[in-house]
């Protein structure tokens, strides 16, 4: 068997389990594409700026994570989801840090998770909150912690921690445990992403734009009173 034949065999094996994986991942696919479409709506209404490339990258990475998930490439799925998260947080962070963004485009600066999700200066910091949506000051810390925990969970797959390896049998197979965990992570990211975008942009939106994002925001953040208040009082 040549190297190419070997890779083709793997592809056959993956294709073989793809259909039943689609069925098992129905929720993941629906949630993921809904999420992607929601981010695209946000992207449409956020004012044009160079840093938005990171938000586009985030969507792309999100969709790649879903496709990896349906191919049972779980590690890739979790890694891509983490990258999507980094891109989204990074984009919002750069929205207020042009110099950092320019350095990033010139590869002279890395996107560092501990910088973009820092309680003092990151996108869920009190500083961001004070500047963009003061009424969320009792909530930002909760989402900061949620984001931190989700990032740590996803990182376990990137770092290859022991429990992330499928060791009992073949490496490529449908794993219910992974599907449940991925779906949970996806939902959590959806909520966090919406919160980050609300914190940064909701107050800057015009009425017609608010109307566009209202169904998206209400889907995950209906319990966050200041956001609900803002949507309601704007009518």
């Amino acid at each position, binding site marked *: 068997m040549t190297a190419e034949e070997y890779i083709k065999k793997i592809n056959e094996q993956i294709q073989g389990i793809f259909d039943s994986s689609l069925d098992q991942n129905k929720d993941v696919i*629906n949630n993921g*594409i*809904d999420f992607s479409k929601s981010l695209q709506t946000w992207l449409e209404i956020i004012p044009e700026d160079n840093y938005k490339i990171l938000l586009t990258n985030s969507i792309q990475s999100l969709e*790649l994570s879903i496709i990896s998930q349906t191919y049972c490439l779980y590690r890739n799925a979790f890694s891509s989801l983490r990258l999507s998260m980094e891109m989204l947080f990074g984009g919002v962070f750069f929205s207020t840090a042009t110099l950092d963004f320019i350095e990033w485009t010139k590869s002279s600066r890395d996107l560092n998770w501990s910088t973009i999700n820092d309680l003092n200066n990151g996108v869920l910091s009190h500083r961001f909150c004070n500047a963009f949506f003061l009424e969320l000051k009792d909530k930002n810390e909760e989402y900061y912690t949620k984001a931190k925990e989700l990032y740590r969970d996803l990182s376990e797959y990137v770092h290859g921690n022991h429990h992330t390896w499928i060791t009992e049998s073949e490496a490529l197979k449908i794993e219910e445990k992974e599907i449940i965990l991925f779906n949970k992570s996806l939902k959590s990211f959806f909520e966090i992403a919406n919160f980050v975008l609300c914190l940064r942009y909701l107050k800057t939106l015009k*009425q017609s734009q608010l109307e566009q994002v209202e169904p998206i925001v209400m889907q995950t953040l209906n319990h966050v009173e200041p956001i609900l208040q803002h949507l309601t009082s704007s*009518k």
Partner: protein
Amino acid sequence: MAEIYYRTENIRPDELPNIIVKSQLENEIIESLKSNANLILEGSRGTGKSFLMKYACYQLEQNFETEKILPVYITFMASTLIHTTDTFQFRNWMIARSLRELIKSSLKRGLVFSNYASTLLNTETNSETSSLDNIIKAYEDSYKNPGTVIDATSLPELNDIIDALNDICEQNQIKGIYFFFDEAAHIFRPEQQRQFFTLFRDFRSPYVSSKAAVYPGVTHFGDTFEGIHDSVFKKLDRNILDPGYLSFMTEMVEKQVDQGKLTMINQNKELYNTAIFCSNGNPRILLKTTQGLQRISSSEIDTLIRNFYRNEIWAEHTLLGDKFKGHKVLIDWGRKFLEDTVIPSLIKKNFNEDGTIRTETSIYFWIHKDSPIQIREALRLLTYTGIIRKIDDGVKGTRSLIGTRYEVNYGVFLSQVNNPTRNSRELIAKLQINNFSEYGQNHAIYSDLIDKNIILENDEMLVASINNILDKSISNLDLSDWQKNKLINDAGLLTINDLINTSEQDLINKLEQVGVKRSRQMKNAAYAELLEYISG
């Protein structure tokens, strides 16, 4: 302390099953919401309409794979078109908004009725725009530029939309698309409400149905909408005299309060029951008042009743004045009527002079069916916040006169009684629905309101609109031709304003064959025209 939810908007969908309590009433409403009938669900603020709607949606979503019913929940919260005076644009906005929500709901279920912006696919998918996308775009274009004239013939008709939805259902093996309009009518003006209910009636096919939650008293269905024929009508009212009332409300509280508070409630059940009765079957009020209780003792509950039911509950009623411009006079009169006339009269009815309770008690009153329209309007507004509840029409009073029976919110009544907690149990036990105070066709207390100018607004636009109505000819009124002829030719009254400024007695004096009844009818028609406008 556990988080108490008293607004459905704050509850995450997956928490709904943990906190719902269902009696036969709730079960019936949920089943109706999940059926393919067009449904109007009426209830005062805080009775749980949104909760039941959300729960029905949640269940349909959970069972989508087997039942194939797609629920679409619409709240109209951030709405640009709410203030438009162009009804054509308003209707189009409603349609576009509903269809956008449909797309959102379909996405959640993995059904594609719209194209993706395609981030990973290299092919251009946007070229094949779906029919629903076309429809939404056409409708959105029609309202995005207020003032510009839109060629209505270029828009898809409602039938085309329904056909598109039917196709979607057939193509995706969906058995139904159910639209849930939560509090939609509430934020619209009367003219918009009529538009909404016309759309609500016409937006119907074997696959498509709609449900709307409305408040009592402040909803205008319009002439073309016939409740009985066009929809199933359900009321979300809980009667404090129902045998299961206490256990139902207690269970609801048990699901939300923390252990400490629960122990406190269980140790003082009898006292807490007074608070439950006072809430008059309104979960939001009960949860709110329970959250505020630090201890449960007679004095604590008495203080709660006095503070909440004498003051706070009225605050919401007063807010109506801000929401519905021009209502202030009606709102103030309604409160005065209840506090200075109805409740004192009920207290006399319930208590002997020595302070003991009579053999039969009452929280009910009756208003003659031909009372002035301003009076009925003021009472209608009191039903919105649940301060009173309309029980039934066509009730016989003294001398077989016919009228409407109302119930005073038990908490509001009890707040005016000495030693509320001490007297509550006996008052409740002796309540008799046929025991009511009566207010006849021309009760003296009405004159306070009838003599007042009900227009106090200084909003220029509103005044201009009202002047337009006042200047309208009497021929526009909802009266018989004979009556209009009498007013115009015999009394020489030309405009609605002329009629409003003429007293009933003058009409009787000037016009042959016009007595007490007809003069009231004529005046009522003039006020009806005006009130309908300022109701929004």
